[in-house]
Protein backbone atom coordinates (compact mmCIF):
# COMPACT_ATOMS: atom_id res chain seq x y z
CA UNK A 1 0.00 0.00 0.00
CA UNK A 2 2.99 2.26 -0.32
CA UNK A 3 1.97 4.95 -2.77
CA UNK A 4 4.13 7.35 -4.67
CA UNK A 5 4.02 10.71 -2.90
CA UNK A 6 2.83 13.29 -5.37
CA UNK A 7 1.82 16.35 -3.34
CA UNK A 8 2.97 18.08 -0.19
CA UNK A 9 0.65 18.84 2.70
CA UNK A 10 0.79 22.52 1.80
CA UNK A 11 -0.50 21.65 -1.66
CA UNK A 12 -3.22 19.50 -0.06
CA UNK A 13 -4.32 22.48 2.03
CA UNK A 14 -4.32 24.83 -0.93
CA UNK A 15 -6.28 22.37 -3.13
CA UNK A 16 -8.76 21.99 -0.27
CA UNK A 17 -9.21 25.78 0.03
CA UNK A 18 -9.88 26.06 -3.73
CA UNK A 19 -12.19 23.06 -3.63
CA UNK A 20 -14.21 24.32 -0.65
CA UNK A 21 -14.39 27.76 -2.19
CA UNK A 22 -15.96 26.38 -5.40
CA UNK A 23 -18.96 28.47 -6.25
CA UNK A 24 -19.60 29.79 -2.73
CA UNK A 25 -17.99 33.12 -3.49
CA UNK A 26 -20.77 34.13 -5.87
CA UNK A 27 -23.84 32.38 -4.54
CA UNK A 28 -25.22 32.90 -1.08
CA UNK A 29 -24.59 29.75 0.95
CA UNK A 30 -26.91 30.73 3.76
CA UNK A 31 -29.63 32.52 1.84
CA UNK A 32 -32.59 31.28 3.85
CA UNK A 33 -31.09 32.32 7.21
CA UNK A 34 -31.20 36.00 6.12
CA UNK A 35 -29.75 38.19 8.92
CA UNK A 36 -28.62 35.10 10.88
CA UNK A 37 -26.59 33.78 7.96
CA UNK A 38 -23.36 34.30 9.89
CA UNK A 39 -24.63 31.97 12.65
CA UNK A 40 -25.42 29.40 9.94
CA UNK A 41 -21.87 29.71 8.63
CA UNK A 42 -20.51 29.17 12.15
CA UNK A 43 -22.77 26.15 12.83
CA UNK A 44 -22.16 24.76 9.33
CA UNK A 45 -18.41 24.95 9.84
CA UNK A 46 -18.63 23.14 13.19
CA UNK A 47 -20.67 20.34 11.57
CA UNK A 48 -18.29 20.42 8.61
CA UNK A 49 -15.25 19.98 10.89
CA UNK A 50 -16.86 16.87 12.38
CA UNK A 51 -17.54 15.47 8.90
CA UNK A 52 -14.01 16.22 7.72
CA UNK A 53 -12.51 14.66 10.86
CA UNK A 54 -14.52 11.53 10.08
CA UNK A 55 -13.12 11.42 6.54
CA UNK A 56 -9.58 12.01 7.80
CA UNK A 57 -9.89 9.20 10.36
CA UNK A 58 -11.23 6.84 7.68
CA UNK A 59 -8.13 7.61 5.63
CA UNK A 60 -5.80 7.36 8.65
CA UNK A 61 -6.95 3.97 9.94
CA UNK A 62 -6.87 2.58 6.42
CA UNK A 63 -3.19 3.33 6.33
CA UNK A 64 -2.49 4.50 2.81
CA UNK A 65 -5.53 3.09 1.01
CA UNK A 66 -7.46 5.35 -1.35
CA UNK A 67 -11.27 5.46 -1.65
CA UNK A 68 -11.46 2.55 -4.11
CA UNK A 69 -9.24 0.34 -1.93
CA UNK A 70 -11.09 1.34 1.25
CA UNK A 71 -14.50 0.44 -0.22
CA UNK A 72 -13.17 -2.88 -1.52
CA UNK A 73 -11.60 -3.63 1.89
CA UNK A 74 -14.82 -2.79 3.72
CA UNK A 75 -17.59 -3.99 1.43
CA UNK A 76 -15.86 -6.74 -0.54
CA UNK A 77 -15.01 -6.78 -4.23
CA UNK A 78 -18.52 -6.55 -5.68
CA UNK A 79 -20.01 -4.41 -2.90
CA UNK A 80 -17.00 -2.11 -3.06
CA UNK A 81 -17.40 -1.62 -6.78
CA UNK A 82 -21.09 -0.77 -6.38
CA UNK A 83 -20.25 1.82 -3.69
CA UNK A 84 -17.49 3.18 -5.95
CA UNK A 85 -19.96 3.62 -8.80
CA UNK A 86 -22.24 5.57 -6.44
CA UNK A 87 -19.30 7.78 -5.52
CA UNK A 88 -18.42 8.30 -9.19
CA UNK A 89 -22.02 9.35 -9.91
CA UNK A 90 -21.91 11.77 -6.99
CA UNK A 91 -18.62 13.33 -8.10
CA UNK A 92 -20.03 13.61 -11.59
CA UNK A 93 -23.03 15.42 -10.17
CA UNK A 94 -20.70 17.78 -8.28
CA UNK A 95 -18.72 18.69 -11.39
CA UNK A 96 -21.94 19.09 -13.41
CA UNK A 97 -23.47 21.35 -10.80
CA UNK A 98 -20.37 23.54 -10.53
CA UNK A 99 -19.91 23.79 -14.28
CA UNK A 100 -23.52 24.75 -14.71
CA UNK A 101 -23.37 27.34 -11.89
CA UNK A 102 -20.35 28.88 -13.56
CA UNK A 103 -22.11 29.00 -16.95
CA UNK A 104 -25.30 30.51 -15.57
CA UNK A 105 -23.37 33.14 -13.62
CA UNK A 106 -21.30 34.15 -16.63
CA UNK A 107 -24.36 34.39 -18.85
CA UNK A 108 -26.35 36.39 -16.29
CA UNK A 109 -23.57 38.77 -15.31
CA UNK A 110 -20.73 39.14 -17.77
CA UNK A 111 -21.40 37.56 -21.19
CA UNK A 112 -25.14 37.63 -21.96
CA UNK A 113 -24.57 37.26 -25.72
CA UNK A 114 -22.12 34.35 -25.55
CA UNK A 115 -23.55 30.83 -25.96
CA UNK A 116 -23.55 28.83 -22.74
CA UNK A 117 -21.70 25.96 -24.41
CA UNK A 118 -18.68 28.16 -25.15
CA UNK A 119 -18.39 29.40 -21.53
CA UNK A 120 -18.81 25.93 -20.11
CA UNK A 121 -16.31 24.51 -22.60
CA UNK A 122 -13.64 27.00 -21.52
CA UNK A 123 -13.96 25.96 -17.87
CA UNK A 124 -14.11 22.24 -18.64
CA UNK A 125 -11.15 22.33 -21.05
CA UNK A 126 -8.98 24.06 -18.39
CA UNK A 127 -10.18 21.69 -15.66
CA UNK A 128 -9.73 18.54 -17.73
CA UNK A 129 -6.25 19.64 -18.81
CA UNK A 130 -5.29 19.95 -15.12
CA UNK A 131 -6.98 16.62 -14.28
CA UNK A 132 -5.20 14.88 -17.17
CA UNK A 133 -1.84 16.20 -16.04
CA UNK A 134 -2.37 14.71 -12.57
CA UNK A 135 -2.34 15.69 -8.93
CA UNK A 136 1.06 17.40 -9.10
CA UNK A 137 -0.16 19.85 -11.72
CA UNK A 138 -3.42 20.49 -9.87
CA UNK A 139 -1.39 21.14 -6.70
CA UNK A 140 1.09 23.48 -8.36
CA UNK A 141 -1.64 25.36 -10.23
CA UNK A 142 -3.52 25.82 -6.96
CA UNK A 143 -0.36 27.13 -5.30
CA UNK A 144 -0.37 30.01 -7.78
CA UNK A 145 -4.09 30.67 -8.21
CA UNK A 146 -5.78 29.88 -4.90
CA UNK A 147 -4.02 32.66 -2.88
CA UNK A 148 -5.84 35.08 -5.19
CA UNK A 149 -9.19 33.95 -3.77
CA UNK A 150 -8.92 35.47 -0.26
CA UNK A 151 -7.12 38.44 -1.76
CA UNK A 152 -10.07 39.26 -4.03
CA UNK A 153 -12.52 38.87 -1.13
CA UNK A 154 -10.40 41.17 1.06
CA UNK A 155 -10.13 43.82 -1.68
CA UNK A 156 -13.90 43.90 -2.28
CA UNK A 157 -14.71 43.85 1.45
CA UNK A 158 -12.25 46.57 2.44
CA UNK A 159 -13.43 48.78 -0.42
CA UNK A 160 -16.95 48.67 0.97
CA UNK A 161 -16.17 48.87 4.67
CA UNK A 162 -16.99 52.46 5.45
CA UNK A 163 -19.94 52.10 7.73
CA UNK A 164 -20.27 51.70 11.47
CA UNK A 165 -23.94 50.83 11.47
CA UNK A 166 -24.45 47.15 12.26
CA UNK A 167 -28.24 47.09 12.65
CA UNK A 168 -28.45 44.72 9.66
CA UNK A 169 -27.46 41.87 12.00
CA UNK A 170 -30.27 42.52 14.50
CA UNK A 171 -32.50 40.95 15.81
CA UNK A 172 -30.60 37.70 16.23
CA UNK A 173 -32.23 34.25 15.97
CA UNK A 174 -35.78 35.38 15.39
CA UNK A 175 -36.43 32.23 13.35
CA UNK A 176 -34.21 29.28 14.25
CA UNK A 177 -35.43 26.73 11.64
CA UNK A 178 -33.84 28.33 8.55
CA UNK A 179 -30.59 28.85 10.46
CA UNK A 180 -30.23 25.12 11.17
CA UNK A 181 -31.32 24.26 7.63
CA UNK A 182 -28.71 26.63 6.16
CA UNK A 183 -26.05 25.24 8.51
CA UNK A 184 -26.68 21.76 7.09
CA UNK A 185 -26.62 23.18 3.54
CA UNK A 186 -23.22 24.74 4.21
CA UNK A 187 -21.90 21.60 5.84
CA UNK A 188 -23.08 19.32 3.01
CA UNK A 189 -22.44 21.70 0.13
CA UNK A 190 -19.01 22.96 1.14
CA UNK A 191 -17.21 20.86 3.75
CA UNK A 192 -18.85 17.46 3.26
CA UNK A 193 -17.51 17.21 -0.28
CA UNK A 194 -14.12 16.64 1.34
CA UNK A 195 -14.94 12.94 0.96
CA UNK A 196 -13.46 13.25 -2.55
CA UNK A 197 -10.08 13.84 -0.89
CA UNK A 198 -10.01 10.18 0.13
CA UNK A 199 -8.70 9.78 -3.43
CA UNK A 200 -5.96 12.36 -2.78
CA UNK A 201 -4.94 11.93 0.89
CA UNK A 202 -2.86 8.74 0.38
CA UNK A 203 -0.61 10.63 -2.03
CA UNK A 204 0.51 13.26 0.51
CA UNK A 205 3.80 13.10 2.38
CA UNK A 206 2.73 12.70 6.05
CA UNK A 207 -0.32 11.47 7.94
CA UNK A 208 0.05 13.95 10.81
CA UNK A 209 0.44 16.86 8.41
CA UNK A 210 -2.78 15.90 6.63
CA UNK A 211 -4.87 16.73 9.68
CA UNK A 212 -3.07 19.99 10.29
CA UNK A 213 -3.20 21.20 6.70
CA UNK A 214 -6.85 20.21 6.27
CA UNK A 215 -7.89 22.09 9.40
CA UNK A 216 -5.92 25.11 8.22
CA UNK A 217 -7.83 24.92 4.94
CA UNK A 218 -11.13 24.74 6.85
CA UNK A 219 -10.10 27.76 8.92
CA UNK A 220 -9.23 29.83 5.86
CA UNK A 221 -12.46 28.78 4.11
CA UNK A 222 -14.46 29.67 7.21
CA UNK A 223 -12.82 33.11 7.33
CA UNK A 224 -13.59 33.69 3.63
CA UNK A 225 -17.23 32.57 3.83
CA UNK A 226 -17.82 34.47 7.06
CA UNK A 227 -16.36 37.63 5.52
CA UNK A 228 -18.50 37.25 2.37
CA UNK A 229 -21.68 36.55 4.38
CA UNK A 230 -21.17 39.35 6.92
CA UNK A 231 -20.25 41.82 4.15
CA UNK A 232 -23.35 40.95 2.12
CA UNK A 233 -25.65 41.31 5.14
CA UNK A 234 -24.02 44.60 6.04
CA UNK A 235 -23.84 46.12 2.56
CA UNK A 236 -26.87 44.72 0.72
CA UNK A 237 -29.10 44.01 3.71
CA UNK A 238 -30.64 40.74 4.90
CA UNK A 239 -33.92 41.07 2.98
CA UNK A 240 -32.39 41.91 -0.38
CA UNK A 241 -29.68 39.26 0.02
CA UNK A 242 -32.40 36.62 0.04
CA UNK A 243 -33.78 37.78 -3.32
CA UNK A 244 -30.57 38.50 -5.19
CA UNK A 245 -29.08 35.47 -6.91
CA UNK A 246 -25.49 36.73 -6.85
CA UNK A 247 -25.13 39.07 -3.85
CA UNK A 248 -21.32 39.14 -3.94
CA UNK A 249 -21.37 40.44 -7.50
CA UNK A 250 -23.88 43.14 -6.57
CA UNK A 251 -21.72 44.09 -3.56
CA UNK A 252 -18.68 44.46 -5.83
CA UNK A 253 -20.68 46.70 -8.18
CA UNK A 254 -21.49 49.05 -5.32
CA UNK A 255 -17.89 50.21 -4.99
CA UNK A 256 -17.90 53.80 -6.25
CA UNK A 257 -15.60 54.99 -9.03
CA UNK A 258 -14.12 51.64 -10.02
CA UNK A 259 -15.41 48.39 -11.48
CA UNK A 260 -13.85 45.49 -9.63
CA UNK A 261 -16.67 43.00 -10.10
CA UNK A 262 -14.47 40.93 -12.47
CA UNK A 263 -12.60 39.97 -9.28
CA UNK A 264 -15.71 38.06 -8.20
CA UNK A 265 -15.87 36.39 -11.64
CA UNK A 266 -12.21 35.47 -11.27
CA UNK A 267 -12.97 33.87 -7.90
CA UNK A 268 -15.59 31.66 -9.44
CA UNK A 269 -13.34 30.71 -12.33
CA UNK A 270 -10.55 29.62 -9.96
CA UNK A 271 -12.73 27.99 -7.29
CA UNK A 272 -15.05 26.35 -9.81
CA UNK A 273 -12.11 25.25 -11.95
CA UNK A 274 -10.36 23.57 -9.01
CA UNK A 275 -13.55 21.81 -7.95
CA UNK A 276 -14.36 20.56 -11.46
CA UNK A 277 -10.73 19.45 -12.00
CA UNK A 278 -10.65 17.46 -8.75
CA UNK A 279 -14.07 15.89 -9.47
CA UNK A 280 -13.13 14.84 -13.02
CA UNK A 281 -9.78 13.53 -11.77
CA UNK A 282 -11.49 11.46 -9.06
CA UNK A 283 -14.13 10.09 -11.47
CA UNK A 284 -11.56 8.97 -14.05
CA UNK A 285 -9.10 7.61 -11.47
CA UNK A 286 -11.82 5.63 -9.69
CA UNK A 287 -13.19 4.24 -12.96
CA UNK A 288 -9.72 3.13 -14.06
CA UNK A 289 -9.01 1.52 -10.69
CA UNK A 290 -12.27 -0.42 -10.38
CA UNK A 291 -11.95 -1.72 -13.94
CA UNK A 292 -8.26 -2.55 -13.57
CA UNK A 293 -6.99 -0.12 -16.22
CA UNK A 294 -3.45 1.18 -15.87
CA UNK A 295 -4.20 4.62 -17.32
CA UNK A 296 -6.89 7.06 -16.31
CA UNK A 297 -6.00 9.91 -18.68
CA UNK A 298 -8.11 9.00 -21.73
CA UNK A 299 -11.15 8.80 -19.45
CA UNK A 300 -10.72 12.41 -18.33
CA UNK A 301 -11.95 13.86 -21.63
CA UNK A 302 -14.92 11.50 -21.79
CA UNK A 303 -15.95 12.48 -18.26
CA UNK A 304 -15.44 16.14 -19.15
CA UNK A 305 -17.83 15.79 -22.10
CA UNK A 306 -20.30 13.92 -19.89
CA UNK A 307 -20.18 16.78 -17.36
CA UNK A 308 -21.25 19.25 -20.06
CA UNK A 309 -23.97 17.01 -21.51
CA UNK A 310 -25.40 16.22 -18.07
CA UNK A 311 -25.45 19.92 -17.23
CA UNK A 312 -27.69 20.68 -20.18
CA UNK A 313 -29.97 17.76 -19.31
CA UNK A 314 -30.26 18.06 -15.52
CA UNK A 315 -30.26 21.84 -15.23
CA UNK A 316 -31.75 23.06 -18.52
CA UNK A 317 -32.05 26.67 -17.33
CA UNK A 318 -31.21 29.04 -14.49
CA UNK A 319 -34.60 28.60 -12.84
CA UNK A 320 -34.19 24.83 -12.58
CA UNK A 321 -30.74 25.31 -11.10
CA UNK A 322 -32.11 27.79 -8.58
CA UNK A 323 -35.02 25.48 -7.71
CA UNK A 324 -32.59 22.61 -7.14
CA UNK A 325 -30.39 24.79 -4.95
CA UNK A 326 -33.36 25.72 -2.78
CA UNK A 327 -34.67 22.17 -2.49
CA UNK A 328 -33.54 19.43 -0.11
CA UNK A 329 -32.29 17.44 -3.12
CA UNK A 330 -28.63 18.32 -2.68
CA UNK A 331 -28.68 17.40 1.02
CA UNK A 332 -30.48 14.12 0.30
CA UNK A 333 -27.92 13.17 -2.36
CA UNK A 334 -25.00 14.19 -0.15
CA UNK A 335 -25.86 12.46 3.12
CA UNK A 336 -25.20 8.82 2.09
CA UNK A 337 -21.87 9.54 0.38
CA UNK A 338 -20.62 12.10 2.89
CA UNK A 339 -21.78 10.61 6.19
CA UNK A 340 -23.39 7.15 5.87
CA UNK A 341 -20.72 5.32 3.85
CA UNK A 342 -17.75 6.91 5.68
CA UNK A 343 -19.29 5.94 9.07
CA UNK A 344 -19.78 2.37 7.82
CA UNK A 345 -16.21 2.35 6.47
CA UNK A 346 -14.88 3.57 9.82
CA UNK A 347 -16.75 0.88 11.80
CA UNK A 348 -15.93 -1.98 9.40
CA UNK A 349 -12.26 -1.01 9.16
CA UNK A 350 -11.96 -0.80 12.97
CA UNK A 351 -13.48 -4.28 13.34
CA UNK A 352 -11.35 -5.76 10.54
CA UNK A 353 -8.15 -4.16 11.86
CA UNK A 354 -8.85 -5.58 15.36
CA UNK A 355 -9.43 -9.04 13.88
CA UNK A 356 -6.20 -8.83 11.90
CA UNK A 357 -4.27 -7.78 15.04
CA UNK A 358 -5.69 -10.74 16.99
CA UNK A 359 -4.73 -13.13 14.20
CA UNK A 360 -1.18 -11.79 14.18
CA UNK A 361 -0.97 -12.08 18.03
CA UNK A 362 -2.22 -15.69 18.01
CA UNK A 363 0.17 -16.77 15.29
CA UNK A 364 3.41 -18.16 16.81
CA UNK A 365 6.41 -15.89 16.15
CA UNK A 366 8.33 -18.60 14.29
CA UNK A 367 5.46 -18.81 11.79
CA UNK A 368 5.40 -15.02 11.29
CA UNK A 369 9.17 -15.01 10.71
CA UNK A 370 8.92 -18.09 8.52
Amino acid sequence: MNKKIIISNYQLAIIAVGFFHGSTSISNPAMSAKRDAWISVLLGTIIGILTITLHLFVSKINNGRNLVEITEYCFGKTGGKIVCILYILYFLYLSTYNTRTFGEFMIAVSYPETPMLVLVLILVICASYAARSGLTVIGKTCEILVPLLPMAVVVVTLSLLNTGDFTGFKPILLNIGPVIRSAFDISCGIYGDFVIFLMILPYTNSIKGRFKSTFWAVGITFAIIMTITARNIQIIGPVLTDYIRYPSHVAAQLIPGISIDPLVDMNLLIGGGVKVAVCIYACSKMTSEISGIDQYRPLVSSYAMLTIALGFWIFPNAMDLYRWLKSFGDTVLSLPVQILFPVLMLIITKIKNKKNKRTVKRTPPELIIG
Partner: protein
Amino acid sequence: MISILIILVIISIVVLLNLKELIKSDSKVKIMLIFFFITGIVLALAILIKLDRQPPNPFIALMDILKAMGLESQQ
Protein backbone atom coordinates in the same frame (compact mmCIF):
# COMPACT_ATOMS: atom_id res chain seq x y z
CA MET B 1 -29.01 19.94 -38.25
CA ILE B 2 -25.94 22.20 -38.05
CA SER B 3 -25.87 21.97 -34.26
CA ILE B 4 -25.91 18.16 -34.43
CA LEU B 5 -23.04 18.35 -36.89
CA ILE B 6 -21.12 20.59 -34.47
CA ILE B 7 -21.70 18.05 -31.67
CA LEU B 8 -20.40 15.26 -33.92
CA VAL B 9 -17.33 17.30 -34.85
CA ILE B 10 -16.53 18.13 -31.19
CA ILE B 11 -16.89 14.50 -30.12
CA SER B 12 -14.81 13.30 -33.09
CA ILE B 13 -12.02 15.73 -32.18
CA VAL B 14 -12.02 14.46 -28.57
CA VAL B 15 -11.92 10.84 -29.78
CA LEU B 16 -9.09 11.59 -32.21
CA LEU B 17 -7.09 13.38 -29.51
CA ASN B 18 -7.33 10.34 -27.25
CA LEU B 19 -6.98 7.67 -29.91
CA LYS B 20 -3.21 7.38 -29.57
CA GLU B 21 -3.39 6.80 -25.82
CA LEU B 22 -6.31 4.40 -26.20
CA ILE B 23 -4.44 2.25 -28.74
CA LYS B 24 -1.16 2.32 -26.81
CA SER B 25 -2.76 1.34 -23.49
CA ASP B 26 -1.91 -2.08 -21.99
CA SER B 27 -5.57 -2.86 -21.36
CA LYS B 28 -6.80 -1.67 -24.74
CA VAL B 29 -10.15 -3.46 -24.83
CA LYS B 30 -11.28 -2.42 -21.36
CA ILE B 31 -10.32 1.23 -21.73
CA MET B 32 -11.86 1.51 -25.20
CA LEU B 33 -15.05 -0.11 -23.96
CA ILE B 34 -15.41 2.37 -21.12
CA PHE B 35 -14.31 5.37 -23.20
CA PHE B 36 -16.72 4.67 -26.05
CA PHE B 37 -19.52 3.79 -23.63
CA ILE B 38 -19.25 7.21 -21.95
CA THR B 39 -18.76 8.97 -25.29
CA GLY B 40 -21.82 7.14 -26.65
CA ILE B 41 -23.91 8.37 -23.72
CA VAL B 42 -22.67 11.93 -24.35
CA LEU B 43 -23.48 11.71 -28.06
CA ALA B 44 -26.94 10.25 -27.50
CA LEU B 45 -27.74 12.77 -24.77
CA ALA B 46 -26.47 15.73 -26.83
CA ILE B 47 -28.49 14.75 -29.89
CA LEU B 48 -31.63 14.09 -27.82
CA ILE B 49 -31.27 17.47 -26.07
CA LYS B 50 -30.84 19.21 -29.43
CA LEU B 51 -33.95 17.47 -30.79
CA ASP B 52 -35.75 18.42 -27.55
CA ARG B 53 -36.47 14.76 -26.82
CA GLN B 54 -34.29 14.32 -23.75
CA PRO B 55 -35.22 11.63 -21.20
CA PRO B 56 -37.15 12.74 -18.11
CA ASN B 57 -35.02 14.72 -15.68
CA PRO B 58 -34.21 12.57 -12.62
CA PHE B 59 -33.62 15.62 -10.42
CA ILE B 60 -37.11 16.98 -11.05
CA ALA B 61 -38.48 13.55 -10.12
CA LEU B 62 -36.38 13.60 -6.92
CA MET B 63 -37.66 17.08 -6.05
CA ASP B 64 -41.24 15.92 -6.62
CA ILE B 65 -40.68 12.90 -4.36
CA LEU B 66 -39.22 15.13 -1.65
CA LYS B 67 -42.17 17.48 -2.01
CA ALA B 68 -44.59 14.56 -1.68
CA MET B 69 -42.72 13.53 1.50
CA GLY B 70 -43.31 17.00 2.93
CA LEU B 71 -39.76 18.28 2.45
CA GLU B 72 -40.64 21.50 0.66
CA SER B 73 -38.19 23.93 -0.91
CA GLN B 74 -37.02 26.94 1.06
CA GLN B 75 -39.10 30.06 0.66
